[in-house]
Each structure stands twice: as C-alpha cells, then as structure tokens.
C-alpha cells in the first residue's frame, strides 16, 4: 500500500525488534497440531521471540491428515493436501528435523534426546505427538516372528494412504475393520478403485460415536448403495494367512476373503515420549487450561517447567479429542500464552460439532445423538429411501443435539443455535426445514410465468426459472444474476421457493446463505466471536484475517462496517471510509440523479417556526429541487448537490435526521395529551425522549418507531419496528416487529409497562438485542418472527438468559458515544469527501415540478 500525506492513513509504530535473547522452542511433532501452533506463534510475532526447532516422524512437511481419504479416493492428489511444504520452514527460520524421531526429554537438563543421538536444548518444549491407529488384539495378526502379516494397514499417514492406493491397484478384495469415520472413508476410497469391500463393525450401528441407531441405519443404507457390504454388531475373531493376509474370520466361523485389511478401530494418543519423560499421562498427556503439562504421577510434582502439549495427544479436563477444531483452539491459546499476546488466555474445552462428508454422504452431528432426560424434546425426520435422516434434541429451550444426514441445509442455523445458545423458533419443525410460507396460499408452481416475484427489480418467475435453466445452481447465484430479492429484500423467501421449484431438487447447498456478508464465510455469531477474540477493529483487518485468501469484498464492506461500529462503540482503530456506503460517507441519501436528499432531525415530528424559516432559506439558497413532507413526519430537501452538503448543514444548524442509514431513523408521534382530547399519555414527549436517546444508533436494517397517545393509533405505532401505545392509567404497550412497507405486519405486543422510563429501557434493550442477533439487512418484521415472540419476551422481559444487564450496558455505551455526523461538514474526514462524483452532463436529471407549482423552481442546471 502506498502511504501518502492525505491524513487518512495512520501508520502503526513498530517496536524495535529485539533478536538477541530469543528463547529456544522445541516442538516434538510436525502434524496438524504442532505446525498449527507454530503458525499461530509466528502470526503473533513469535519469530522475534523464539528460535524454533521442530521434530517430525514423517519425512515431509505438514499435510492435512483429514484429506487423506480424498487422496485415497482419488479426489485429490498428494500435492494438494500439503499445508506447509519443506521450504516454508526455511522461509520462517524454522529448523525442521523431518524424519527424526524423539526418544525422550530430560526435563531437568532441558534437553531433547532424539533417536539419531542428537541432543537439542530447549527453553520451551511443545509436545504434539498426535495419535496412532488402535489395533485391537486379533488372532493371527502377527507372524511367528512377531511382525505383522503383509496386507494389513492402518489409515493414518500419507505413507498409509500411498500403500493402500498401491495395494488397491493390484488387489480385489478388502475388509475394513471399524465403521467409524475413518473406516467408512477407507471403505469408500477403496470401493472407488473397484475393490470389493466388506466393512466389519462391532457396535450395533455405524458411526456410533456420533449417531443414534436410526441415523446409523439410514447411513448404512447409503453405504450399502455404494456396493460396500456392511456387517454390524460383529466382532473380528482373527485374521487368516501365514505370510500375507488372506481373510478375516468372524465369531460364527465365516471367513471373509481379503487381499488387504484396513484396521480403523479408533485412535490412541501417542504418549510414549511423555511417559518416558516423566510427565503426567492418563489416557492422554494431562494439560491444564494453558496447555501446560505437569510432572509426576497424577501431576503430584506440579507443573512441568516450560513443557506444553497440544492436539490429539493431550487430555484436557478429562477429555481427549480426535477432531481438528479443538486442536486449532488449543494452538491459538498456546500461542497467545507463549508470546504474551494474551497472557491470561485459557482453553476451556470445545463443544464438538462434526461437519463432514463421509463416503460421499453429507453428515453433521453435534451434541447429543438422542434424548437423554425425561423433559428432552426430540424432533425426528427420517426418509431412509432417500438416505435422509434429521433430528434435533431440545432441552430447556436450548439446542443440545442435532444430527443431519443427507440434507445439511440447516447446518448454519443449528450450529449457531448449538454454539451460541441462539433462541429457537417456537415451531420446532423450523429447526429441520425452511418453512417458507408466504401469506397467500398460492404455491409457486401455480404462479404464472410472468408473475412478478421481485417488485423492486421487476423480476418475474419466468426470469428466475430461466436463470436456473442457464446453470445457476444456488439461490445466491440466481439473485446475483437476476437481482431478484436484492431490492427491499421482502420477496427473498418467495425467490428461494421459486428457485427451489425451478431446480426441482437439484439445488446445490448454499452455505453462503447463512453468512453475515457474502465475503466472509461465517454466520453472525461466529463472526462476532472471531472479531472479538482477535480484537479486529477495522474492515480491512476482518478481511485480512477471516476472508478466504484475505480478499476484500466490496459487497461485504457496508455490513462489516455496521457490525464493527456496533461491537466497538468507543470507535474503530482506523476510520476506513471506503468501508461505508456513500450515504454513510456523506450523511445524506443518494438519489437517482446522483444528488442527495437532506432530512434534518425533527424529533417526534415536532418543529418550530424558526426551524421552518431556516429550512425555507436553505431551500431558496441552494436551489432545492423539491421540499417534501415525509412519511416519518419530517421535511426532506431533495436534489442537493454533494458539494453543497456541508454548507447546507451549516446553514440549517440542525442535527442529522439519519434518513439515509441502516440505523435508527425517526419516532413519529401524535399530539398526545398536549392538545388531543382523547390522549391517554404524553406521546409527544416520550417520542422525543426516545429519539433523543437512540438517535443515530446503527442497526442491521433501518428502524422506524412511533409513539401514540391512545389506541386510535394516529401515528401508526402498530406497524412500526418499535411502536408504543398509551393505554391509560399511566400504562404503555410496547409492540415490536411491525411493518408497513413492502411487507405489512402488525407488531407483536412485547410487554405493557407502567412508565415512560420503562418504555425507554425496554426499547433500548430490544434495539440492542436486534443489533447483536439480527442478520445484516434483516428487518425486525423478519427478526421477531424468526425467533418467536415468546422467545424475545423471555430474553428481554423475564431475563431468561441473563442477557439483560449486558444489553442495557452496551446500549448505554453506544448512546454515550453518539456524535452528530453533520459536524463533519466543518472538517471533512477524507480529501474530497464532498467532491462531486458527477461532473456529468448526460445524467437522467430528475424533472422539476412545473414552475410556480410547489417545489417547482426555475430550472438552472449546473454542469462543471
């Protein structure tokens, strides 16, 4: 990036690098955990703090073990699975001892002894020795001399995968022992090479670690459809063969003929080095929350000085892991800790959820596989003929388990709900299916071809069907191509239905539909967690750290800016103006001819003669194209040139009304008790108070409010995002989720409260809840029904989740940080902030009203 004197860049001062006293870090293990830990360390500037040496059993760089099944099935070649090739180590100053096995560690002398007789001193030691396949005891597995029969394989390393591949080319019959993930992958891989496969699994159903019996049965159907013979509930008695394996014997005496046998009956942590080094080892190497090892039996000698462990070899809080996600978290915590980036970082265990494709079948499993307590709700859908099985387990309104087999469209939502305790829809079926139901009963199949689906962009059902026929295979692709659903967004559900109808079930899974913005593959809760953990305070930092390849995405910038400003009310690291939509850069609403509209704040729709006089003067002075009273009870000045905006604001001397942002807009009021003879409450004052408190607060989509003094509803509070209605005796009803735009919806009664103060508190709480849990551009009329009113009420009124204090506090911080953006007019933030972008003569200029008519002024086009 070129730095200039423009003033928009703030250079970060670099501390002088101190290389003199680097500590010596020795890593035992160059698998996914060890290498990841080193990567995390380097990312935190660890190269300046540590001289790194890595030992690896295998003579390679570091590869993605998970992808070995793809190598076996031929979907991926070997080169494609390397995470760090050998040159990477040299480039990062790492001394890699590939193919050198570590023997033991002398913790007192702080020296690592390797099998080649080498002695490597350390200051900090990291053990990441991973795990090995578990070979259950079987008769005849070994020859008389104690070596294993030829043709018997584990499936763990690149060498295993190579040997299996070679074997698959020359042999015809295989038996795979173990019907867990690895076994199924091995069986599938071999079957793709035309090998006849028998799979023997001693538990009663496949993948019993992750799945319940019914799901296991459905999966079995899918596996058998691949031509693999499955034997469950059957132990392997022994292997046949004298030099090379010839068959597998079952307890009933049956012998399954086999030229090769793959043993995939689980893994065991590799703890030999740790045991020989006197560390506390139970099932795995015992570590504390900072990944520190302890020494002596049961750790009775206390923490081992400078010795850490991560990955599948460790046991943390009694738990060992065989999945990649926990290992990544551990590596992050360790790096935080070792580099001092976050000295108090702690690992608290991982709630594992598994997302994988096993033998070509999509599978997601998290938490419980079935109900365990009396009160547990269990929702199941099973369609064995198509190989689909779905279930969820709900306990106390929380998702505590889910299994999706064969249809994983609800993964994103369920993962969020599981990880973050997201409120669940009342209609439990919606956990498993998208119950898109437009208000009318006409099914999409019956719609005429020319029926307009997206009214904003004029897209018909036929156009959408055409896009699908032309090859768009996801809802997102169809929307990008036709722009259907890209206007106000109210037709999105219908667009999805039409696309689904047109695709006739051939729709690709559109994971991106759940992402907060298209350029960062994370749903909002996950994205917020990542941003908070890494303390990302600029849009460019979010892209750099979380987007694929660190690539920016223009269409994601606005949503990320909004999110960051919500999360860090005290301000962002770097004011990146390019992250904002033009409206938010110049604090006005762009019009079709490139001019802007200016709407000054008019709290509660109440104005004064002085304000009106100033507005009239400004309209004259700046040749305003039209003066319009808006639906939000304010006055809109249309046709203002960008370069005039600062002068207009200065002359108005009024704060911004935020008529341009995805933010709190306005509070309409009626005349309440001041003048109205029916008024039951001072709606005008309350409306003004609400607008004063929440002015300018950014929200996922625009937010329009109203307060009325009686149920006659003169200011339409029943159809507002938040509507407040006085009902007498000092009581107020608070409605949420109403709309009177492209969608019309009456708000839901959230609560009836006893004072204006309570209205303010509840309104703020709801807005903050919506800010934190609402999707980008999701209006409250979608947000409230998505969660269910009962759930919203439980969270906000009954404080069922203990969220209220935090919501109130964060809203207060936001309110405290408010600053009127029109102040920027006096001092532009970027060069040319208000410079015209249209010295254009050929724009379609908005026609003026006839001269003499209201708003009709003399025509004077200015083109520079």
């Amino acid at each position, binding site marked *: *990036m*070129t730095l*200039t*004197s*423009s003033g*928009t*860049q703030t250079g970060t001062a670099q501390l002088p690098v101190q290389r003199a006293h680097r500590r010596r870090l020795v890593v035992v293990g160059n698998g996914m955990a060890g290498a990841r830990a080193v990567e995390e360390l380097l990312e935190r500037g660890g190269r300046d703090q540590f001289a790194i040496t890595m030992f690896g059993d295998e003579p390679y760089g570091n590869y993605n073990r998970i992808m070995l099944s793809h190598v076996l099935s031929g979907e991926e070649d070997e080169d494609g699975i390397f995470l760090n090739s050998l040159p990477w180590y040299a480039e990062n100053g790492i001394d890699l001892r590939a193919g050198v096995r570590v023997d033991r560690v002398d913790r007192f002398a702080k020296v690592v002894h390797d099998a080649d007789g080498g002695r490597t001193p350390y200051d900090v030691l990291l053990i990441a020795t991973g795990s090995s396949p578990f070979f259950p005891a079987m008769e005849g597995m070994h020859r008389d001399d104690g070596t294993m029969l030829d043709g018997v394989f584990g499936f763990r390393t690149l060498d295993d995968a190579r040997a299996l591949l070679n074997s698959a080319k020359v042999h015809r019959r295989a038996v795979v022992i173990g019907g867990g993930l690895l076994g199924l992958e091995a069986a599938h891989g071999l079957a793709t090479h035309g090998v006849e496969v028998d799979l023997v699994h001693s538990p009663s159903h496949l993948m019993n670690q992750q799945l319940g019996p019914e799901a296991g049965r459905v999966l079995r159907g899918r596996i058998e459809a691949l031509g693999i013979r499955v034997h469950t509930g059957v132990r392997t008695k022994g292997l046949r063969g004298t030099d090379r394996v010839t068959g597998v014997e079952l307890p009933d005496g049956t012998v399954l003929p086999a030229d090769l046998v793959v043993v995939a009956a689980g893994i065991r942590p590799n703890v030999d080095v740790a045991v020989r080094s006197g560390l506390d080892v139970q099932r795995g190497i015992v570590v504390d929350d900072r990944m520190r090892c302890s020494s002596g039996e049961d750790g009775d000698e206390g923490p081992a000085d400078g010795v850490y462990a991560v990955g599948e070899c460790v046991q943390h809080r009694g738990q060992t892991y065989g999945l990649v996600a926990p290992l990544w978290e551990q590596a992050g915590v360790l790096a935080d800790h070792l580099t001092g980036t976050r000295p108090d970082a702690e690992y608290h265990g991982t709630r594992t959820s598994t997302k994988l494709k096993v033998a070509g079948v999509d599978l997601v499993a998290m938490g419980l596989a079935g109900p365990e307590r009396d009160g547990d709700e269990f929702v199941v859908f099973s369609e064995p003929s198509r190989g689909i099985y779905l279930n969820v387990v709900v306990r106390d309104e929380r998702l505590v388990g889910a299994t999706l087999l064969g249809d994983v469209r609800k993964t994103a939502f369920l993962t969020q709900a599981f990880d973050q305790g997201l409120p669940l829809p009342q209609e439990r079926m919606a956990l498993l299916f998208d119950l898109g139901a437009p208000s009318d009963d006409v099914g999409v199949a019956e719609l005429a071809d020319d029926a307009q689906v997206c009214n904003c*962009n004029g897209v018909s059902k036929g156009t959408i069907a055409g896009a699908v026929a032309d090859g768009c295979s996801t809802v997102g692709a169809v929307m*990008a*191509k*036709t*722009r259907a659903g*890209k206007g106000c967004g109210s037709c999105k559900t219908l667009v999805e239905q039409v696309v689904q109808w047109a695709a006739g079930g051939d729709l690709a899974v559109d994971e991106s539909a759940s992402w907060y913005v298209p*350029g960062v593959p994370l749903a909002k809760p996950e994205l917020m967690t990542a941003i908070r953990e890494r303390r990302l305070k600029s849009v*460019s930092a979010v892209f750099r750290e979380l987007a694929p390849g660190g*690539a*920016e*995405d*223009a*269409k994601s*910038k*606005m949503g990320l800016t909004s999110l960051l400003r919500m999360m860090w009310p005290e301000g962002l690291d770097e004011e*990146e*103006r*390019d*992250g904002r*939509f*033009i*409206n938010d*850069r110049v604090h006005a609403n*762009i019009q*079709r*001819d*490139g001019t802007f509209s200016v709407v000054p704040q008019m709290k509660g729709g109440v104005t004064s003669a002085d304000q009106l006089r100033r507005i009239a003067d400004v309209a004259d002075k700046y040749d305003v194209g039209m003066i319009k009273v808006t639906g939000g009870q304010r006055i809109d000045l249309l046709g203002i040139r960008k370069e005039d905006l600062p002068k207009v604001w200065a002359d108005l001397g009024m704060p911004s009304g935020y008529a341009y942002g995805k933010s709190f807009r306005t509070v309409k009021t009626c005349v309440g008790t001041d003048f109205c003879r029916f008024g039951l409450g001072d709606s005008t004052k309350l409306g003004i108070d609400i607008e004063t408190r929440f002015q300018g607060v950014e929200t996922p989509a625009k937010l329009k409010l109203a307060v009325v003094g009686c149920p006659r509803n003169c200011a339409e509070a029943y159809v507002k995002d938040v509507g407040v209605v006085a009902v007498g005796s000092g009581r107020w009803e608070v409605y949420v989720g109403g709309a009177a735009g492209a969608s019309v919806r009456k708000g839901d009664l959230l609560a009836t409260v006893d004072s204006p103060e309570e209205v303010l508190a509840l309104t703020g709480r709801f807005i903050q809840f919506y800010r934190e849990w609402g999707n980008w551009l999701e209006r409250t009329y979608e947000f409230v029904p998505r969660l269910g009113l009962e759930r919203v009420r439980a969270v906000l009124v009954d404080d069922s989740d203990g969220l209220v204090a935090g919501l109130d506090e964060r809203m207060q911080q936001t309110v405290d940080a408010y600053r009127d953006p029109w102040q920027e007019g006096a001092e532009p933030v*970027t*060069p*040319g*902030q208000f*410079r*015209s*972008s*249209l*010295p*254009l003569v*050929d*724009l*379609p200029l908005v026609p003026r009203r006839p001269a003499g008519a209201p708003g009709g002024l003399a025509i004077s086009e200015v083109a*520079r």
Partner: protein
Amino acid sequence: MSATTTSHRVCPLAEIPVGEGRAYVVAGEQVAVFRHRSGRVSATQARCPHAGGPLADGQIDEGVVVCPLHLNAFDLATGGSTGDQPALAVHAATVDADGTVSVQLTGSAS
C-alpha cells in the same frame, strides 16, 4: 476503430482516499478513478451503464466496483457486469513515480 492511446495525468494520488473513487474530466470524458487498498489504481467510465449512477461514489474491492444506485457490480479489469448489465468502458491507469495518477484513453472512445 482508431488505435491511438494517449496518456493523461489526472490527479495526485493523495487526492483519492484509500479504497474510494473520485470522478474527473479527462480530455472531455467523464472518468471515475479508484484507488485500491493494494496501492493500485483503476479507471472506468464515470456513469453506470444501467441508469447513469455515479460510479465514483460506489464501493470497490480489488476486483469490482459496485454502483451506489442499484448495486450492480462491474469487473474493473474487463468492464464486464457480474449480473446482466451492459459492460463498462475501462481505462488503463497507473501511478507515476511522482505520485500522479495517469489514465490511458483510447482514441475512438464514444
């Protein structure tokens, strides 16, 4: 179609904030110039072919500009629409050693 390409010095780079665009008149043509976060610059015709929107007010990344009026996106290298809009005219643009942005216009441009 004439093949003459002429280079025009348009503005100091510092005049364009990082990641934003600004509009200029270059040899009688309306040109939007964008400054990418990577340090590169791009240039296109200033008005959106769809409905005349001011592209210099749009949002960019390293590959596309998104028009502020109806959010149509255009590839900054080829001018092609990512949806079904007509293509944009794109111009080669560079930053000279002295920090001035130059834009190359081809003679027969409309």
